[in-house]
């Protein structure tokens, strides 16, 4: 990854770090406290990264910012919690696996249907129309979720509880830090998914066709690649990534029908921070946002937490609209 940091942004970074240390010092924070805030931030950052990759995948192929992405996250969490609570088999672990599989399949299907039914007919319209349609889809999916599950929160136990006798998550305490068992699941799953995704994009024919379509639709069409079908693949992939993010974060909160908006916006900011076109940029953007947000909330008021993503979004759009991690755009051979 290229990081052409200008002297100015390095200066801003140093000033911010100084402010953070000054504020944290007032609370008696030492290295352990900062490390703890960073570890927790890495966890939400990983989820933001998964959601952000969903934004990037769709944007690359269709040039649409898909604001329904947050609804996919919500669906993943809600369907899993719902199916799990029905205890279909005698084994809790099996129930979780079944619930998560059903959630991923259903959410992916929703993504695919979204593209075929709503996005495909308007693919020649201007971008604003498409974005408005995705916002409408988000509202519709959230409304349907409220219809299905009502206004109360559901629950999904931490994954570690399925492997141990402990009714609560098994927490690890290395070096005086608290690392929740669920965090490890989140990191492992995120890393595995990203590796699988990179394998798909670089090593499989479909993945290459996908990248070709993203890079130059006309040229890809002339090579016999069906770019309309690629858009459907993109929506399905984005929905699946969102669903996995939702399933992983579900035990860390109480899944509720309106959880998608906030997570969707965080994912969007992460994707913009990474330049909207690059998967690795989106991952870095997500992790950066998670950590900055959590450390900033830790040393100031946590009530201001959601402000930081807006601040980052504005700064990025003002000073580096091409994304923090963007290098020179160059033609790529796929």
């Amino acid at each position, binding site marked *: 990854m290229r990081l052409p940091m200008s002297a100015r942004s390095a200066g801003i970074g140093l000033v911010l770090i100084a402010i953070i240390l000054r504020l944290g010092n007032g*609370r*008696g*924070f030492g290295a352990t*406290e900062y490390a703890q*805030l960073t570890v*927790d*931030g890495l*966890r*939400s950052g990983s*989820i933001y990264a998964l959601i952000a990759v969903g934004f990037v995948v769709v944007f690359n192929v269709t*040039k649409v910012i898909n604001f329904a992405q947050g609804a996919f996250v919500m669906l993943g969490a809600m369907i899993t919690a719902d199916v799990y609570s029905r205890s279909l088999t005698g084994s809790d672990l099996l129930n979780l696996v079944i619930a998560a599989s059903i959630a991923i399949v259903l959410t992916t299907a929703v993504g695919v249907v979204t593209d075929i039914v709503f996005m495909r*007919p*308007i693919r*020649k*319209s*201007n*971008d604003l*129309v498409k974005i*408005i*349609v995705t*916002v*409408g*889809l988000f*509202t*519709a999916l*959230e*409304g*349907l979720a*409220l*219809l*299905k599950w*009502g*206004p*109360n*929160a559901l*629950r999904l136990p931490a994954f570690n509880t399925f492997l141990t006798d402990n009714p*609560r998550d098994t*927490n690890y305490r290395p070096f005086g830090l*608290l690392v*929740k068992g669920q965090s490890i699941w989140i990191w492992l799953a995120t890393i595995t998914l990203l590796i699988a995704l990179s394998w798909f994009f670089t090593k499989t024919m479909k993945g290459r066709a996908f990248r070709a379509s993203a890079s130059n639709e*006309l040229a890809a*069409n002339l090579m016999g690649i*069906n*770019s309309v079908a690629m858009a459907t693949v993109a929506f399905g992939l984005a929905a699946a990534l969102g669903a996995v993010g939702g399933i992983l974060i579900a035990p*860390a*909160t*109480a899944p*509720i*029908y*309106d*959880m998608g908006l*906030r997570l969707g916006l965080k994912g969007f900011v992460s994707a913009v921070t990474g330049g909207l076109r690059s998967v690795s940029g989106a991952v870095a953007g997500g992790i950066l946002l998670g950590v900055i947000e*959590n450390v900033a*909330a*830790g040393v100031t*008021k*946590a*009530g201001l*937490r*959601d402000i930081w993503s807006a601040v980052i979004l504005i700064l990025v759009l003002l000073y580096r609209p091409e994304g923090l991690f963007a290098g020179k755009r160059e033609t790529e051979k796929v």
Partner: protein
Amino acid sequence: MENESEATHDPTVGRDCAPNDSRQKGKDVKTKNVWYRATVTLIAAALVASACGSDSSGSAGDDASSETSTSDVTGDTSSDDSDSPVTDDGDAEVGSTYRIGIAVSATGPASGLGAPEQATFQLIEEQVTADGGVTGPDGILHPVEFVFLDNETNPDAAASSMSRLITEDAVDIVLGGTTSGNSLAMLPIATENETPFVSLASAGSIVRDPESGEVRRWIFKTVHINDNVAELVASYVGARGSSSVCYLAENTGYGQDVLNTASAAFDAAGLEIAFSDVFEREETEFPQTVSIGAAGCDTVVIGSLMPAAVNANAALLDALPDVEVIHTSGICNGGFLSLDPTVVEGVTATCPKLLVPPDSLPDDDPQKSVLSSYRDAYEQFSGEPVNSFGGHAWDAGQWALLALGSLEDGLEGAERRAAIRDALESEVDGFVGTGGVFTLSADDHVGIVDTKTALTTVRVVDGAFAPLPESDWAN
């Protein structure tokens, strides 16, 4: 292969180029119209879906509410309609109809509170209708009509429901509000139109203007103020001999109010809040626990509604397992116990008395019989377990009936509303309700003289709220 529908408009290949191709923009103008229409339709469908979605949470008897409101719209003259309703009470003289406006959050995020309130008002409506109405001191029977509107847990909808009840439905008194935000949006309209309003929300600023410190003339409420909660929490923490207290509040109107009132009550009790912060409703990370650890608190008070209260509690349990957690009255319903039983076992909360089984109360408790009779009536009527929110609605309905029952015949419009307001201050005197023993006066529009009639400390034992008498506080 992919351009079936658009083929006639655009035979060129160029449209697949960059989006800022001006030729393409020109050609899209025709089709744009269609897609704008499609978009608008879709968004409309989305809105309908979300509206329907919230309806389902409105629980029992939504049709009853729409019936009342539509029948009211058709017979829309003001309060002097003289059509004599059919009653089985043959010998009583029938006077003009009284109208009670109800505007609770039957849908939306606070529908967990609003739905039991709505059901309770329907229960009262059923009982009053069975009696034929309320009888005044002059022996004249007045039918009572209930007009139900949904404030959708949305301050704008709440304000407009208040205006509609007053101007279109010409009600004599409004009950509802459900949340503090909604009540605060509704009360200026009630004041302006000189209509008494009994709120079901917690914030003290509903009945007392925080800037001038004056009691709002037309506004009352049946819910203990958060100062009551703070007072009880402070005396509990004091009795435990805690050395350092931290406070976490949900970032909502409710959370801010419990936090503000707690600072005052804790000061008064000689306790200092070492660290306080707020958190969001759908939070996944709680950096606040790091600051709490650094501040060295041994007790943390969580001032929040569900489900955020459980999320914050879980984060504390993971990060600082030795800290004692106390909840305010925002969690006092069944969802708190069932969402994640592994988190809430053993925690303490201050809750309305309705939450504990009536037979666990001492026999000399004056509220024992009203608590148990409301519990039975509500559970039979709604089929749901009782909760304190419905209890507040019950008290509000009884206040209204008490005030209406004290009116002489012949009062109309503004005169009648003023008489109801005055009657609330004079008639609600030692009233034994589910949420306290109330005595209203010109200076006190909540009327809870003794906090312990409104609230009791409870502890979660084996997944249920068990009463925690003062004598056991130190254990």
